[in-house]
Each structure stands twice: as C-alpha cells, then as structure tokens.
C-alpha cells in the first residue's frame, strides 16, 4: 500500500514527461508536413526521414557534429588526464581546494562563460586589443566565429566533467605500481603508457563519453562562437523547428541523433555500473 503510494505518482510523472514525449517525437517524425497549425498531419508517411536521406546537408550535419564532439572529447581528455593526476597526487587539503577550483566554473553559469570567451576573442576583444596595443598587428585577427573558437568554448564547458571520473580512478589506483615502474627505470611517459593508462582505461572511456554525448547535440556554442558553416546537427534541428517550421524533419533529426548516440550511451551506462 505504502509502496503504491510512492510508485504511482512517480510512474505517472515519468510516463507523462519522459515516455510520452519520446512517442510523440517518433509519431511526428513519421508524420507529414502541413501548412496548418500545428504544422503537421499525423500519418505513416516517413517524409521527414526521406528528406534526411535525400539531402546530404542533414547527413553532413550529423557527421560534422560527431566529429566536433569527438574532437572536443579528445581535447578535454588530453587536458584532463594530467590535471586529474595533479589533483589526485596533491595532499588531501590541497586536493579539496583544487577540486573546488575545478567545479566552481561550472556553478558560474554556462552562458556567462561563453560570453567571457566572446569578449576575449572578438575583433574588438581582449586578445586583439592586447596585440594591437603591443603593435604586433594592425588589423584584428579573426578569432571568433572559427572552429578553434568553437572548440575552445566547448572544451571549457565540458572539461570538468572529463576530469572527475579520471580523478576518481587515479585515486583508487595503487601508487606503488607507478613507483615500482619508475624504480625499475621507466621514464614518466613510459610509466604513463604502460601502467597508469591501462589501469585507468575504463575511466578514460567514461570521461570521453561524458563529454562526447552532450557535445554531439550542442547548440549554443556552435551558434554563438562557431563559423557560419559549422552547421552541426543541434543547430540544424533548431533551425528546422524554429525557422523552417518543418516539425517532421526536426523530429526525424532528433530520432536519428538519438539512435546514433544509443551505442555510446549504453557503453557509458555499462562503465558506470562497474564498481
């Protein structure tokens, strides 16, 4: 009785706000576009999916998003590994301080951090002002609205999430292993490649996925910092929905993005379930 009292509202909420929306997206992805309001007519037409297949623009957007997400995750991982090592090896008091310094940017607001990057990289921004003041350049360097700016923004947003699983794994790792390897004459890069990396590989994969999965659908940073040609799937979905008002195509894109992410998501959940 008590069980039902707790379970029933939770089930009701989840069915209404998680399961039903998924079903509706699928139904609209299969529907036909219609000039009415709402702009679709329920049918088993599959026209949305057909559009995705016909125009290479959509496939390109998906592939580009996966590539940018993979690059973001790899860059985050290569920065996160040494940072996690440094934090894990610090004395406990200092470690808490470093962890706080790692997580504090997360609490300061995603859009404000994007705003900060825009302020640094704009034509009239901090970096160009500095270079011009030093007489190094005459015309401002085009820094913002480039792929580099977009990647910097994305790594900045997701880096802390890559550090945390690595830090947890490194903390569990027996330090005597690496010391033994070093005592036997292995240089630091060798110790890392032969001892640390294999022992923390599952955490590294988890860290990669923790960045890759949300980055694959990212909309805000490509929109505000990326080049106009960086039409990633998140941006294209947004435009199809809000500007073109083609709901079936937007819903079909959501379905395809989700299907593509299913394997990474399952892998991530398997890694999380391990102790």
């Amino acid at each position, binding site marked *: 009785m008590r069980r039902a009292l707790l379970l029933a509202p939770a089930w009701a909420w989840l069915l209404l706000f998680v399961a039903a929306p998924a079903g509706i997206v699928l139904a609209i992805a299969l529907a036909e576009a219609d000039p009415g309001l709402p702009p679709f007519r329920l049918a088993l037409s599959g026209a949305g999916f057909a559009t995705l297949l016909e125009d290479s623009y959509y496939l390109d957007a998906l592939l580009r998003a996966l590539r940018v997400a993979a690059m973001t995750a790899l860059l985050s991982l290569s920065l996160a590994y040494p940072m996690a090592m440094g934090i894990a090896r610090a004395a406990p008091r200092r470690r808490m301080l470093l962890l706080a310094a790692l997580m504090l940017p997360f609490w300061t607001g995603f859009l404000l951090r994007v705003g900060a990057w825009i*302020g640094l990289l704009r034509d009239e921004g901090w970096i160009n002002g500095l270079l011009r003041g030093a007489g190094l350049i005459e015309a401002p360097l085009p820094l913002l609205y480039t792929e580099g700016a977009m990647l910097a923004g994305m790594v900045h947003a997701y880096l802390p999430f890559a550090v945390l699983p690595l830090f947890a794994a490194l903390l569990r790792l027996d330090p005597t292993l690496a010391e033994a390897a070093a005592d036997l004459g292995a240089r630091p890069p060798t110790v890392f490649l032969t001892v640390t990396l294999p022992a923390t590989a599952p955490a590294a994969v988890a860290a990669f996925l923790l960045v890759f999965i949300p980055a694959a659908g990212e909309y805000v940073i490509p929109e505000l910092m990326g080049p106009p040609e960086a039409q990633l799937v998140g941006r294209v979905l947004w435009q199809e929905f809000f500007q073109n008002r083609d709901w079936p195509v937007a819903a079909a894109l959501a379905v395809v993005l989700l299907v593509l992410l299913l394997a990474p998501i399952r892998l991530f959940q398997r890694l999380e379930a391990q102790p």
Partner: protein
Amino acid sequence: MRTGRFVRFALLAGFAFLWLPILLLVAYAFSADRIPFQWGGFSLRWFAALAANERLVEAALLSLRVAAGAATLAVLLGGAAGWVLVRFGPFRGRAAFGALIGAPLVLPEVVTGLSLLLLFVALEGLTGWPAGRGATTVLLAHATLGAAFVAVVVQARLAGSDRSLEEAAMDLGATPLVAFRTVTLPLVAPALAAGWLLAFTLSLDDVVIASFVSGPAGTTLPMALFSMLRLGLTPEVNALGAVVVLGVAAIFGLATLLLRPRGDGGPG
C-alpha cells in the same frame, strides 16, 4: 609519487584555461569603457546599468522562481524515485522505471527540449492544458531534468547506508512514519539538499530546453542573456558575470566554513 614537472605545468595550464576567461570577465565589469574587455578606468556604471535593465532583472526574478519550484519538485520526485530503486527490491517494470528516470541525464538537450515542447503542444490540443507556454512549462521541464540528477545523488547516498537502522528503529517500536522521520530523513537529508542545489543550478543555467518549452511570457535569464550575446556583447554581461561569480564564491566560501569537518576527519 612525486608530482612531475609536466603534471604541474599541465595543472597550471588547465586551471589558467578554466579561470582566465572568468576572472577577466569579472575584472572588466569594473571598467568604465563602453567596449567590453577594454580598460577605461575604474567605474561601477555597468552595475547601475544592469540594475536599471528591467528586462534582465525581470528575467532573473522569473528564473529564480522557476528554479526554486523546479528544484523542489525535482527533490520530491527524484527522492521518491531514488528511494524506490534502492529500497523496494525487484518490482514489475523496475528496469523501465530506472531507464525513464535516468533518460534526461543522457539525452541531448535539443532532443529533450523538442520532445517536451511537442508533448505540451499535444496536451494542449487534447485537453486544453497547458493554455499556452511560459514559466509553468519551463518549470515542469526543469523538474523532470532535475529529478534525474536528484535520483542519482539519493541512490548513491542510500546504497552506502544500512537499512538495518530503520529496521532496528521499527523493532524498537517506532511506527514506519516515525522511523522515516527520525532515521531515514536525516540520513538522506544531505543528498536531498545537494540534489536540490544541483537541480536549482541546472534550471538557472539552461537555455536550450527553456527556449523550446517557453512562450512569449516566459523569458528566463539565460534566454535573455542568449539573445544579448547573439546581438553583441555589452559591459552589462560583465557586470552580471561579476555579480554571479562573486555571489557563488561567497556561498561556496560560507558553505566550506559551515561544513568544515570538526577534527573527526570526514571522507577525503
């Protein structure tokens, strides 16, 4: 293990990368210059401009209300779900239940936003509710997102605790309600508080889901900030950044002081 020079350098570089943009954002909030991130002498004029920006202030107040409501709902729902998953043992549909509560954790924001908007549109067509979209629909969407995080935090806390404590209380004659209030609630309270804060922050920070499910009457602070950033940066963004960063730092410092372990050496 000795910390090598490379690791030290990487740590420094990583933190510089994380913090330099934020510190500069805050520092230039105090510059009089009309162009953001250029120094024009010390001034507080952009804080005054921020306070006078009614659109932004209104959006901030709306965001705080939505975030508080969403976090509270998320704690109720996520707390119940986490409890059910750890303490109920196997029940019919447990796997599906776990997948549904956790789904918002792994779904891309654009997918969550689009699917919830389509739900609200369909619901309105079928039942007349919600009549239009705005703060309420954003609150419901954020509560669903936050509940996923609260459930994870609560599960972690409960899994690390011993249920024999509650059983002992009931063996000693406590009714289930008394056992819950005196044993279980104090046990999960830190997880609920942490979950509330997390859900609150996620709601305050979200622009994508809110943009999908909101309407003309429900412009949240991130939505207002997003359109500002799209049109071009103004020093008001610096001022807002300074207010947020200094506020968060103050809360963080206060929490650290208040929660400092008193010599009994808490976990790490």
